[in-house]
């Protein structure tokens, strides 16, 4: 049974279900459980649900320690940028313990953080920095683009025995979607084909998935049939599905809200250039943010970000065609 619910609520539902299922799941962070009637606090008590001071290094480090000691913490961080305050714990501690111990320990934890809030939240609260975490061995990175995936990927993240960066897009917060009731798991490393097509492959991440689908509708009117793929998880990354699509279409456009050299699309492009070169009939095109801190003022903010127009233009570029005049 599925029902409509907003993206952010779907995430909360997953955490709640997992906490009910497994007593070792903890949930802590700043500004959560601030009143006694908070649903998590009411359901699971003060042992398992706690508010912390503004102390990201300690919050994430404590999650590592609690995980080493047999628990499964979920840390509410609100914004990916706040992980930067504690970068050592995220990159140099959590993912390395298992390996350095020769497999003796595991560090199951989830770092829940929002990103991409390009709605006037200005330079330090609007970044898309997920690719920083992609190449870190031992760390997993997931980016749901739909409410259902938000629930399913969070549940999988909590059950995963590794540290997982769970990045939820702020502009998707209130987006409604059909979300299955009860236990619902979405596996890591499986991309979703959001729209099948034969003329071009568009790989889009997070909030860009909807932009890509909108662009695909416009392209359809131009007689261009686009396939849109949502990787859903960046580490592990499902290159096989992308390569299969490119083998069919011969053309690839990547859409990513991050800056060019800081994007996941750059990594995917390199993989396709390496493993799918023979399929390509045109160079790979990336549509990313311009290389600037996200500006506050709206017209500038819009300007630096990818949008439908830019996606459509990129598709026409790889097709070697000009768009039909509107």
């Amino acid at each position, binding site marked *: 049974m599925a029902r409509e619910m907003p993206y952010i609520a779907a995430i909360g539902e997953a955490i709640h279900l997992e906490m009910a299922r497994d007593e070792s799941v903890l949930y802590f962070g700043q500004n959560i459980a601030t009143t006694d009637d908070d649903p998590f606090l009411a359901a699971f008590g003060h042992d398992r649900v706690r508010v912390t001071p503004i102390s990201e290094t300690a919050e994430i*480090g404590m999650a590592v320690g609690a995980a*080493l000691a047999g628990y499964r913490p979920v840390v509410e961080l609100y914004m990916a940028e706040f992980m930067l305050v504690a970068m*050592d714990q995220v990159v140099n501690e959590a993912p390395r313990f298992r390996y350095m111990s020769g497999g003796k320990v595991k560090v199951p934890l989830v770092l829940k953080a929002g990103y991409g809030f390009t709605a006037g939240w200005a330079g330090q609260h609007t970044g898309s920095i997920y690719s920083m975490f992609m190449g870190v061995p031992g760390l997993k990175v997931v980016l749901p683009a739909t409410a259902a995936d938000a629930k399913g990927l969070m549940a999988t993240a909590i059950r995963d025995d590794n540290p997982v960066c769970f990045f939820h897009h702020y502009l998707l917060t209130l987006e409604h979607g059909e979300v299955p009731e009860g236990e619902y798991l979405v596996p890591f490393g499986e991309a979703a084909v959001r729209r099948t097509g034969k003329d071009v492959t568009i790989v889009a991440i997070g909030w860009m998935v909807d932009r890509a689908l909108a662009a695909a509708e416009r392209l359809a009117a131009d007689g261009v049939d686009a396939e849109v793929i949502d990787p859903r998880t960046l580490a592990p990354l499902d290159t096989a599905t992308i390569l299969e699509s490119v083998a069919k279409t011969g053309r690839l456009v990547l859409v990513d809200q991050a800056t060019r050299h800081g994007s996941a699309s750059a990594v995917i492009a390199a993989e396709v250039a390496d493993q799918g070169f023979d399929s390509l009939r045109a160079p790979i095109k990336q549509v990313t943010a311009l290389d600037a801190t996200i500006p506050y003022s709206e017209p500038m903010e819009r300007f630096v970000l990818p949008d439908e127009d830019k996606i459509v233009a990129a598709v026409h570029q790889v097709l070697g065609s000009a768009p039909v005049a509107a």
Partner: protein
Amino acid sequence: MSSDQQAHGLDKDRLSWILTQMVRIREFEERVKQTFEEHPGAIRGHTHLADGAEASIVGSLATLRSGDQVLATYRCHGYPLALGSDAEAMMAEIYGKKTGLCQGYGGSMHLVDTERGFLGTSGIVAQGIPHATGAAYAAQIRKQGQVVLCFFGDGASKQGAFAESLNIASLWKLPIVFVMENNNYNVVTRSEQEDANAAAGEPLAVKAKAFSMPGVTVDGGDPLEVYGVMHTAVERARSGEGPTLVESKVYRLSAHGNIIAPPGVPLHYPEHEAITVFGAPEEYEAALRGDPVPRFRARLIGDGTLSAEEANAIAAAAKAEMESAVRFAWESPYPEPEEAVNYVYA
């Protein structure tokens, strides 16, 4: 037996155990150091020795009971030894061998032995303090009366991770004791050059006030003094009253670590920074005269707890054990190269 020993409730067996662990740690660390001369190239990278800190380490660990947990820094050899880890496996790990405690994956700075309660280390100053705090949070909600000991150096007390962790541990009354081994050096910097309290001539334990927890300074060269202070702190933690900051004053008898050099340059242990950087050989000589291991041995013989023969037997056993550990490590095979990609993910 002296009165403070009686007051601590330590019988001959326990006192003998304390001396034994101190001697074992010293022998182990000496062997590690000697490896750089005897088998150059066998140990790669950076090692950090605990010689000089044995009384602090063992005096602290003597207060624990089964189920308690310990986390420490990259200067980590002493704790697992005292907790009962296999010395051969430890040496093999430092040599990078397949038979190592962590199968060669971690090395000197990253020993782990969860079965004996040693949950791990960090190579990054202070970053293990939040880990220990998290383990203490787990211990609190598990409700089995476990306590966590968190070891770190004086250098770590300037890191934000220290402040954040102590604040939360105090607020949540976590069952943890924060043990700062203050050897007055952070690599080649003396504490008073980097710490406002040290610069003002104050003990670093004063920092505890900022976190509303007791702060105690103890002579880390006397295992029974350490035992007394730590016993109080551990019982306080175990009873749910919260953490303590214990400043244990030690003197590290080796340099911070072996030299840092690119491949091709032989690694070795230089002399202590007091001599090489600060031109204060008298400081080092005074520390040698106060070496806690022979001091404690002499004390136990002197007050009749042990005979000289018993003490010698302890020394001989330790020597034999650690020589065997070196042989084991030297003769053990390296891991297969392709094993490098194991254990990345659980």
